[in-house]
């Protein structure tokens, strides 16, 4: 609804009458959410699962929709088609709160008949009808999605298509209802909230708005730029073209975590100046001129915002090693070197400043967070925070039904490359693994990179359980051990990107989300063979 955050909190999972999981394997990626889902199911909650891989929750689903990778928009639009066609949508809600219904109705009915949907998704129409009816006729339904929905060329449209379902049925602003994108990383929500995005200022405020800029100027005493910012993929493209010269990367190992790494590496080596600031030497360090050592979570105080907008305080437990410093202090000292009189002496002073430029943080300060977190928006010192958004209406008056467009994946399996590679996360590791590989308990549980393959495919290719395999395409080759898993459909292979000696992202497609430029981590063509 404008911001990439859950409109409810995780506990609402327990209040739902139906859960719709699409592109999320929370068992591995968000285990505590998975626990809540499990509890809800134990209490009789219904479940729809859409995922190419037969994930653990598929076993408990009332309807399981094994869609082809990259066909989320057709599937969700197909469900919408049934809801609109059968008149199952919430007419009262649509009338009062929804904008653009006519155009949407026309688009959905004319373009997304189930025959077409079925061709894209590989799912039989009756299953889609079952799912649609079950969803629309439930009293409280909650959609949860993860990166399986977002990391596609049509990732943003996928999110819109999912939100549209909730809008059609009026599942907003009530307990157990709504849409919940599950954020992958612990403070990705906060990084976005804080204006760590090229198109908005902190609190998703537009720098194109004169009033907003003036408000910031009152606090910051500086004019703000109005030229459109560049996303990282654009920066990298421009670096390759020689137009972009210097990058300062804090706690973000671009050279390992980005898709299509070969091109990323070429772009980074084309920079005139690269600064990396991290707790371990990142892969990007290879291209860096300066490496700044920073303190990790246990060595400083501050706040993180989780996927339910909950701002939570963490306290310093131990001292940083050697000369390492908290990131806020490094940036503050750099600002002073640059001739600006920044004089923050603690992160709590910064927190107060955030509240001054963004009303949503108006009532948030560290002393209030010592005991428990607060969900933004929190307007002032007495405001309790907001666990459910849109209980009293919508920020722009009405909810807009966007026409979610389908953009097929950039790559389709072909004669040369017969497998589709999907990158996923494992329970024991996190992201690029720099922290989890260095925690002995976790490394012992999951010590080396594995690729999951359907047993029939494996047999055909002569790949045995635990065998060393080579996975390759035009962009590179990576070696794994094979794990035979009948949950993986034929023609697909699944693996992670947690290990330095198996840089899966080398293989990832150059495709980007049309709107947000998220790399298409979920669909890349590869071949696989035993070594």
């Amino acid at each position, binding site marked *: 609804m404008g911001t990439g955050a859950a409109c409810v909190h*995780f506990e609402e999972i327990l209040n739902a009458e139906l859960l719709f999981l699409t592109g999320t394997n929370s068992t591995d990626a968000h285990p505590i959410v998975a626990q809540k889902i499990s509890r809800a199911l134990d209490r009789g909650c219904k479940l729809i699962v859409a995922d190419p891989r037969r994930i653990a929750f598929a076993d408990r689903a009332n309807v399981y929709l094994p869609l082809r990778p990259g066909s989320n928009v057709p599937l969700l639009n197909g469900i919408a088609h049934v809801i609109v066609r059968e008149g199952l949508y919430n007419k009262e809600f649509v009338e009062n709160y929804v904008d653009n219904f006519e155009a949407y109705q026309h688009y959905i009915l004319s373009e997304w008949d189930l025959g077409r949907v079925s061709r894209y998704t590989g799912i039989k129409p009756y299953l889609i009808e079952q799912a649609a009816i079950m969803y629309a006729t439930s009293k409280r339904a909650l959609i949860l999605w993860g990166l399986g929905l977002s990391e596609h060329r049509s990732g943003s449209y996928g999110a819109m298509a999912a939100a549209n379902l909730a809008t059609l049925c009026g599942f907003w602003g009530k307990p157990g209802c709504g849409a919940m994108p*599950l*954020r*992958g*990383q*612990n403070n*990705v929500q906060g*990084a*976005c909230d804080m*204006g*760590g*995005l090229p*198109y908005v*200022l902190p609190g998703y405020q537009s720098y194109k708005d004169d009033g907003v800029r003036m408000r910031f100027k009152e606090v910051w005493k*500086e004019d703000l730029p109005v030229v459109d*910012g*560049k996303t*990282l993929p654009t920066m990298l493209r421009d670096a390759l073209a020689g137009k972009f*010269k210097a*990058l*300062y990367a*804090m*706690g*973000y190992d671009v050279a390992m*975590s*980005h898709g299509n790494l070969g091109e990323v590496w070429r772009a980074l080596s084309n920079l005139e100046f690269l600064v990396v600031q*991290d707790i371990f030497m990142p892969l990007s360090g290879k291209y860096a*001129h*300066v490496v*700044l050592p920073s303190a*990790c*979570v*246990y060595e400083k105080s501050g706040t*993180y915002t*989780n*996927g339910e907008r909950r701002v*939570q305080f*963490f*306290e*310093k*437990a*131990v*001292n940083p090693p*050697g000369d390492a410093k908290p*990131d806020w202090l490094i940036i503050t000292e*750099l*600002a002073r*070197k*640059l001739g600006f009189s920044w004089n923050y002496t603690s*992160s709590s002073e910064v927190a107060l400043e*955030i509240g001054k430029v963004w009303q949503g943080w108006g009532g948030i300060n560290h002393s209030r967070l010592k005991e*428990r*977190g607060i969900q933004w928006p929190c307007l002032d010192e007495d405001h309790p925070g907001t666990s459910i958004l849109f209980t009293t209406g919508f920020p722009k008056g009405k909810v807009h039904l966007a026409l979610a467009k389908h953009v097929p994946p950039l790559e389709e399996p072909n004669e040369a490359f017969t497998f589709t590679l999907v990158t996923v996360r494992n*329970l024991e590791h996190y992201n690029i693994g*720099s*922290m989890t590989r*260095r925690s*002995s*308990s976790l490394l012992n*549980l999951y010590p080396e990179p594995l690729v999951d393959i359907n047993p029939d495919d494996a047999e055909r290719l002569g790949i045995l359980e635990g065998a060393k395999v080579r996975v390759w395409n035009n962009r590179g080759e990576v070696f794994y051990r094979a794990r035979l898993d009948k949950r993986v459909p034929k023609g697909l292979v699944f693996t992670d990107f947690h290990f330095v000696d198996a840089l899966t992202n080398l293989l990832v497609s150059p495709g980007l989300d049309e709107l947000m430029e998220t790399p298409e981590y979920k669909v890349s063509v590869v071949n696989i063979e035993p070594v």
Partner: protein
Amino acid sequence: MIRVRINDRELNANPGDLLLEIARREGIYIPSLCYLKNGSVPEKPCGLCVVKVAGEGIVRSCSYKVEREIEVSTEDPEVNAIRKKILEGLVSNHYGDCKAPCHTPCPGGLNIQGYIGFIAKGDFKASLALIKERLPLPASVGRVCPRFCEPVCRRALVDEAVAINNLKRFVADYCMENGELPLEVPPLNGKKVAIVGGGPAGLSAAYFLRLEGFEVTIFDREKEAGGLLRYGIPAFKLPKDVVKKEVEGILNLGVEFQGGKIWGRDFSLKDLKEAGYGAVLLAIGARKEKLYGFEGEGLAESALKFLLDFGRGEVDNKAYTKKRIGILGCSYTAIELARVLRRLDCEVEVIYPRSRTEVSVPLREIGYAEREGVKFTYVTAPLKLIKGGGFHLTLAKTTLSEKRELKILPETAFEREYDLVFRAWGELPSDEFKAFGDIEAKLELNPDGTIKINSQTMQTSEPWIFAAGDFVHGAKTVIQAVASGRRAANMIASYLESKPFERAAVTVKFDFSRGKRAEEFDSNFLDLFVPSERMHLKEREPVERVRDFEEVLIGFTEEEAFKEANRCLKCGCLGIHKCDFREILIKEDVGVAKSRKKMKYAIQKDHPLIEVDSNKCVACSKCVRSCPYSAIFFSVVNKGTPQEVITFRFTEACVNCGACVDVCPTGALTKKELLIPYSRNQSKPVKSVCTFCGVGCNLTVWVKNGTILEVTGRDLPPNRGYTCVKGRFGWEFYKSKDRLTQPLLRKSINDDFRAVSWEEALDYVAENLLKIRDKYGPEALGFLCSARTSNEENFLMQKLARTIFKTNNVDCPARV
């Protein structure tokens, strides 16, 4: 609202509230081992939460819902009797060691299993920090300690005791080389303490007092601090630079040292009082020589005086070289003197009236001396000493009377000639201070002439004057002096802050033990361990070492230390920090003498992260009831009886989240990665948030001495105490050797990095970013925020981009 009366307290409650919850809310103690907030009820409740409700009788408060006004007693005799009976049943089924056997005899009270555990994890600095919590002179003690702990080490029943003291020496030496974890030194609190005597007791007291914020001055007769460590113990046993560094470490915390100040000559207690010292600690050691009492004893030289002079460098070595020496007595002083004289090429004989097995020093010390060529003559006493050209000594053999008193056999008398004879019978505290001033004269003495102190408070008869170390108890070991100094420091702190003197609770009665003596020990337990040879320190060749004063014993290498530390059997319970069972036994005063002495269940080690010891299970089934994955198979038959049989096993559904460990109220379930027995009230719970996925689980990080011990879930939304395997077990990365610790810089990516100062690094960053902005414009720069850094840090990063570089080229990992 309903009014509930518990033990004469009027409380308000809502209808339907659980009685146990009401009491706990109000801080009223009701024990329970099986109660869980999630509403689950065990098949067979522990029954400890019984209370008496007037008119209804005994009820279980964990399942009693308040519906009307009631009167409750939690401490009724009937209630207590029921609890006691249940607890006795549990005790009789419990088999384990609350504390490791090595812990008990250590005068310093060191957490031995803990510091060995840190070594086994390769965390040497944390190991030293744990030692220094109670012992500020580890490198010295690691060389001279008589090792009260090693004789009781359980490992000896498998093969040989763990080399505990050598491990302590290893971490102390390692940290001297590689630095220690920083200590937090508080600002001065304005209160001053004078310490008379800068030996181990005085230095230890100074260390602990300074860490409590007191301004400490040490007065010592010698030029340098260290006492016997520096001046008495020879360098081949305790190198001078080791003592120097260790003493400097203490003084550098901000402790003033005034050397060359002699009590009674340069100052009196009255002077100290007038100078504003609120308390004085007397720790001048024991320097009065013991005498044996034979004719001509006065003609012998004093061994102590010689060693002290030698330590100060005031001995003319030539005067002693190549002499024939007789040393009377077999104290530490005697053996150390003998070994010094061997290095002056003397022929040395130590004469001791009793047998070899009766000497008060460890036999290994005698071994070192023997290998260096010192001759020992036992069961021989001096009768008479005459000085002529040399010394003429008359000796006689001894025997023991039936009362085991020493008896000289005059008929065996024989003669010996020496160039020099030393007496070294040991040392006693002196009482000559009585003459030093008015206040001194008032200090009371014990009948034996030692200073009289209150053994609890360490106070002398003057409440502001404390005494510690050898001065109080006569010549003992360094570790005993340290322990005494530390206790005195605590007492002085309490005294100066007008707090009641702390008295450590005696909990021995509640310490379960697998067996104190070897013969009562269940050997089935020992069968769990594979023999592995003890690591020995390398000893320099005797022929070589008697030519110099270099250290004789060479410390462990890292690999040896690591290997040796892994020999520890981890006897002490690694769940003691979370043991509600023990707490309840202490509160209900139920001793554990009748605990089981035989192992009933094999310890299960097959789970990758969790060790299961059903011998410590109280069958509360909390683990089963809090497992979100139904991953535990558990059954108990004949609960609470001697025929009790517990079956516990993890099923395939287990995802290693560790919820069961945190909830287990005993050491039945423990984390394999936690090797440090600790107590929760001596560690700091720090509020934290998981650094991995976007759920944002609330965690408690348990910290002690600047090191994280473990991580547990915190009972807050969204996770309500639960975590995944990463949250509980994925924290060790912070102390990985791979951490970046210095800014690195290079001009070109083809060069190697060089470590630079922050100043240089940030100058370079600023200069280059500005240069590129000026050359290509702000659009050529980009700034990346992080999904791991805090909101505040991300806020500042984009503020830097937007306000200083005037660009919106800001992005974050929202796309990965």
